[in-house]
């Protein structure tokens, strides 16, 4: 764990990590229909921790302290409410008798169990009835301990919209009562792709997302990587696709600090200071990528990770194997046709051949209307026009892109591109 000089523990990281697994454990006892109660119990334990640690200081093993506090709050609650409420169907009967009450609670809070609880909750959150956005929202809220306001900031949405989305999603989850059973391998494998996809989206929200805050974005990437590592630690979760996904995350995280400079300015790949790329994460990514190369299936994660690895290992933008990248994008388009993938492919074509060819590819993208609100389509047109020396056209596209920019970071990035049109020596 990283630490600042004066604070040996990072309470925010600790709370985020513990909150997910403790809510998952308490929900396993209370039942999924009591999810919000489980969250309250854990919140309450954290508030008490804060009150006590403020004055008494942080205990030696804060993690164990939080587990004990949450367990005690849960026990209080169970004793008080067990006549009025029903809890998880699997344990409800055991909680009603004094003979079995304590052993049941103790067992569910045992160390090894708690780890699986997190995985169980992660799969539960990827319920088939939920949309992608809803899944990512509940994962952030329940598993990562993000408040509604923080999620709203991450998605650049209003807190009330996020509140509604998450409440609706939790309602859907509550109706199923049962947490997802991670011990049945057929269930596990059937839902695994949805889980991988949610983690992928969570990571992308941090990497490409609309939030202007570097800290917020780094946090989203970090959480996605943490949850992905849980998948890797599970025998059924550690599939080639999970390895590829984790590799992809490592390459992205390695480049994140250079993507946004210290002022929060967005840097194009060509302007990034490659010395800032985190070599440790890159080699970790390469290791994961090599482990992903088993089995017959090349998933979209495999291809994206392969593309990212070519960027991550190239010394300069000119040294990059753009030819190979174009052909990887071709394969990606075959699996997942999307205008954004086509856009990235066109940019790779411009590098591998020339700007005119890139423009040609950009103009013939299928489903262009899907990009009508995406600032980087216009930005790509501007970039390539600029390279061919058509400054007026370039400027027009950058202005169009700027009008679509989603945050100040993107706007200032595009402002700099507009200035570059006035002074082509910047190109």
């Amino acid at each position: 764990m990283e630490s600042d000089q004066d604070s040996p523990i990072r309470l925010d990281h600790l709370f985020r990590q513990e909150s997910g697994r403790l809510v998952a454990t308490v929900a396993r006892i209370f039942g999924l229909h009591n999810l919000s109660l489980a969250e309250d119990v854990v919140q309450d334990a954290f508030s008490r921790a804060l009150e006590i640690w403020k004055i008494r200081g942080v205990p030696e093993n804060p993690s164990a302290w939080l587990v004990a506090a949450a367990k005690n709050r849960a026990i209080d609650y169970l004793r008080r409410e067990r006549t009025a409420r029903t809890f998880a169907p699997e344990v409800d009967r055991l909680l009603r008798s004094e003979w079995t009450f304590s052993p049941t609670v103790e067992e569910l809070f045992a160390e090894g169990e708690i780890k699986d609880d997190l995985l169980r909750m992660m799969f539960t959150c990827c319920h088939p009835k939920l949309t992608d956005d809803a899944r990512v929202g509940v994962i952030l809220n329940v598993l990562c301990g993000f408040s509604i306001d923080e999620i709203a900031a991450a998605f650049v949405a209003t807190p009330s919209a996020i509140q509604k989305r998450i409440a609706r999603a939790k309602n859907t989850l509550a109706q199923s009562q049962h947490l997802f059973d991670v011990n049945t391998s057929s269930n596990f494998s059937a839902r695994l792709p949805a889980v991988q996809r949610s983690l992928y989206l969570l990571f992308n929200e941090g990497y490409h997302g609309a939030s202007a805050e570097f800290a917020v974005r780094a946090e989203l990437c970090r959480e996605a990587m943490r949850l992905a590592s849980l998948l890797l630690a599970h025998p059924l979760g550690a599939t080639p696709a999970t390895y590829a996904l984790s590799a992809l995350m490592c390459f992205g995280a390695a480049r994140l600090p250079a993507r946004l400079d210290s002022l929060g300015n967005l840097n194009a790949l060509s302007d990034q200071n490659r010395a800032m790329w985190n070599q440790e994460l890159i080699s970790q990514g390469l290791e994961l990528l090599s482990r992903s190369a088993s089995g017959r299936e090349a998933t979209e994660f495999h291809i994206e990770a392969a593309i990212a690895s070519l960027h991550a290992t190239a010394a300069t933008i000119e040294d990059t194997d753009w030819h190979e990248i174009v052909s990887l994008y071709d394969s990606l388009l075959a699996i997942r046709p999307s205008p954004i993938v086509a856009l990235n492919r066109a940019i790779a074509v411009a590098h591998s051949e020339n700007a005119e060819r890139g423009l040609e590819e950009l103009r013939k993208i299928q489903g262009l209307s899907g990009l009508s609100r995406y600032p980087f389509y216009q930005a790509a047109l501007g970039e390539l026009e600029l390279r061919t020396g058509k400054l007026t056209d370039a400027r027009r596209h950058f202005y169009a892109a700027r009008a679509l920019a989603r945050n100040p970071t993107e706007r200032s990035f595009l402002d700099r591109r507009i200035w570059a049109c006035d002074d082509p020596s910047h190109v």
Partner: protein
Amino acid sequence: MAEFVYLYRGGNRPSAPELQQQILQKWQAWFKSLAEGGHVVERGQPLERSGKLVQAGTKSIIDGPFAEAKDVVGGFTLVKADDVGQAAELAKGCPILDHGGQVEVRPVMHIDM
């Protein structure tokens, strides 16, 4: 040197982990500076926000809280300082002041024999 009790009153609790982190850090830093100045006698304890109130006469017992939330004592610390002025000055560093709380500084009654 005389002894004083700090009573921490009110103050709101933010729910976002980053803010909680900041609060904890500030308290740790404040206690550290107090301790380095040799002012901490006993760090004290936090108090539950609810309790009972036993009333005079009838001795009937009623539930707390006894005051408005902003006035409820949430904890105490025993410190020593040259005089109440210095004790109050030191209390200015208490992070509860950034979150709508107050510190009440009360001299421990001292009897000169």
